[in-house]
């Protein structure tokens, strides 16, 4: 069975983000990019599935040459091969999903893993859109997965609990934290990854259905103030909570 894992290359969550001069993009200067953290759960689950049932794990990524760093990491974790669907321009979720769906059809993958969301734009819809375009079943925000003879039993996180879903292949699974503990890239894996070539082809053309018109920083939090450090400050604190903060 061919298993595809769709990987995005995103700013490290610890990076300090500033908005670029056009006001529509982030300024990438000095920002470290990493594999989208949720995609690491997706890669791990694909590798575990291959270890259990055999098959081949193929990494797919839409974007520029910079994405190769994250693709290499996925290969070093143990993926078999990778395709970079090249496009240097910005794509919305629909255009990304379209390009991925075309390639998934092309390679004939029956099982596709995504992270439940990319931590750059946080749209949380590329997996579902891809499944829709392909006509695959889809289970999102999965925290436990069992696949046997083409039957899938998945647990997904829902508000205040878990939902158990059964479906069948072909399917798209989007991974949530807790699904597994991603392995580190291994020394052997990185030696093997050096010898693997990343196939590059232009991403299929799909029209963006949305555009970013403006990026804004969240409002700066007002600094706190210390009214006092002992009991004598209590009356003033109560007054401020009543009159200024209006919470009591």
């Amino acid at each position, binding site marked *: 069975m061919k298993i595809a894992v769709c990987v995005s290359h995103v700013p490290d969550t610890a990076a300090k983000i500033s908005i670029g001069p056009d006001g529509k993009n982030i300024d990438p200067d000095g920002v470290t990019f990493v594999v989208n953290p949720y995609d690491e759960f997706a890669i791990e689950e694909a590798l575990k599935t291959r270890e259990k049932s055999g098959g081949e794990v193929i990494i797919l990524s839409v974007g520029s040459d910079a994405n190769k760093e994250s693709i290499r990491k996925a290969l070093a974790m143990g993926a078999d091969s990778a395709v970079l669907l090249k496009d240097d321009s910005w794509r919305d979720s629909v255009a990304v999903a379209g390009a991925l769906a075309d390639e998934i059809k092309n390679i004939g993958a029956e099982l596709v893993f995504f992270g439940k969301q990319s931590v750059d734009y946080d749209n949380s819809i590329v997996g579902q859109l891809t499944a829709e375009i392909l006509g695959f079943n889809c289970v999102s925000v999965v925290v436990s997965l069992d696949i046997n003879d083409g039957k899938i039993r998945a647990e997904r996180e829902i508000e205040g609990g878990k939902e158990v879903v059964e479906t069948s292949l072909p399917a798209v699974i989007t991974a949530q934290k807790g699904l597994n503990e991603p*392995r580190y*890239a*291994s020394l052997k894996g990185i030696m093997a990854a050096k010898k693997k070539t990343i196939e590059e082809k232009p991403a299929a053309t799909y029209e963006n259905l949305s555009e970013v018109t403006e990026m804004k920083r969240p409002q700066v939090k007002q600094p706190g103030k210390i009214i006092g450090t002992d009991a004598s400050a209590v009356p003033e604190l109560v007054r401020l909570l009543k009159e200024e903060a209006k919470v009591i």
Partner: protein
Amino acid sequence: MKFKTDNSEIQDFLNDASNFKGTCEGVYFPQNEADIIEILKDANRKNLQVTVSGNGTGLNGGRVPEGGIVISTNNLNRVIEINEEQKYAVVETGVLLSEFHTMIEQKGLFYPPDPTEQNCFLGATVANNSSGAKSFKYGPTRDYVEELDVILPTGDKFTIKRGEISADGFVLKLTTDSGDDIVIQLPRYRMPDTKNSAGYYCKAGMDAIDLFIGSEGTLGIITRVKLKLIDKPENILSCVVFFSDENDALNFIAGAVDLSVNNDDSPDQINALGLEYFDKYSLRFMKEEYPQIPAHAGAAVWFEQEINDYTEEILLDKWVELLSEHNADIETAWIATNDKDREKFKDFRHAVSSKVTEYITREGIRKIGTDTAVPKDQFPEYYNFITKLVEENNIKYIVYGHAGDSHLHLNMMPVNQNEYDLARNIYHRLCEKAVEMKGTVSAEHGIGKLKRNYLKLMYSDENLKAMAKVKRTLDPNLILNIGNIIDPEILKEV
């Protein structure tokens, strides 16, 4: 300037990361150098004991007061200058090391000293000559200090620049900013030829700045430091490798140390930044949090080396060859592919010590941990000696640390008072053995107030008195950080 005396506000200043707890009358929060001068002048007049406090991460009670007042350095936390062209930074004493690292690296520069605990103040790392995993290649904090502003216990100030004042033999002459001359007679002991933070740094013809670095605050208060920076390495290879047999791991480290120290600076030859060791008990401690640790692992080594696009493949091959010679498990070895992974490996190393702390807190027991180092050729014998002695006495322990520097932390976790007493005796014996092998009782944690007795194993009474005389010359009324390094009884005698 704030002076706090309320118990709830000063209790954070009464202990450090050891379990040692002290008392004080109150804590000053100076904003600048002038405030510190004022406090010291006043204390010196009144013969009032002063203890200087960093961020409380020390392990030997160095900042724990035994009466008197405390000076907090929390508010002296400005980064005054970062000079990217000439590669230096000038900082106040209370700048947090972790924040400094981030700030420097964003500018493409690098500050090599990397104590495992990064939540410490830069001035304190100078006072303690702190070191870490990468000190194997880059050396300790001392190697990066170019200039210091020091306020003496008398309130006099002077600025010392590296290369400006050297001792004439064992006599050091200093002039304060107000023009007073001070003549210091240095002790004549020979320091161990290992990584060392036990006692004052003393050598014939030494640079004056080196006396203050590592003096644990006993000679003056550091208010401002100029630190040397280097270019940020293009990339760093970082691996955690597992071995079934601990001897293989130790032999691998010995092989990598030899290749690294004999490296003629060729970028495509093995040249480790650090070689950190974890024994099987350390790995067992970590297994719950790191399920990726292979089940068969009997030991692990974390190593790092600078690489670039050209050397990466060549060096990977060389490391794999060396690892294979020593039966490492290449299949399961972890490798970092980006900065984030590298941080995770650093956290893995830090997790050993924090897991021990969590465990002893949960079980309500006290740990006894070594900080000894021995010369490289003695290391295998010393390792066997220490592990055998603890095993024979059936005391629960783990051992990990900077094996590249022949410097390990063996932590004993005695479960009752009998075992605790036994562990104390064993600890004494481990220190004695290190000294017999011409090593040190403290390679990086310093002496503080808790390890003074072990310093006595290294230096004769005469040498300890010579150290006390240095202190007394600069602190005639004996007010500053009393109890650190030198026994107060000896201070009174000289």
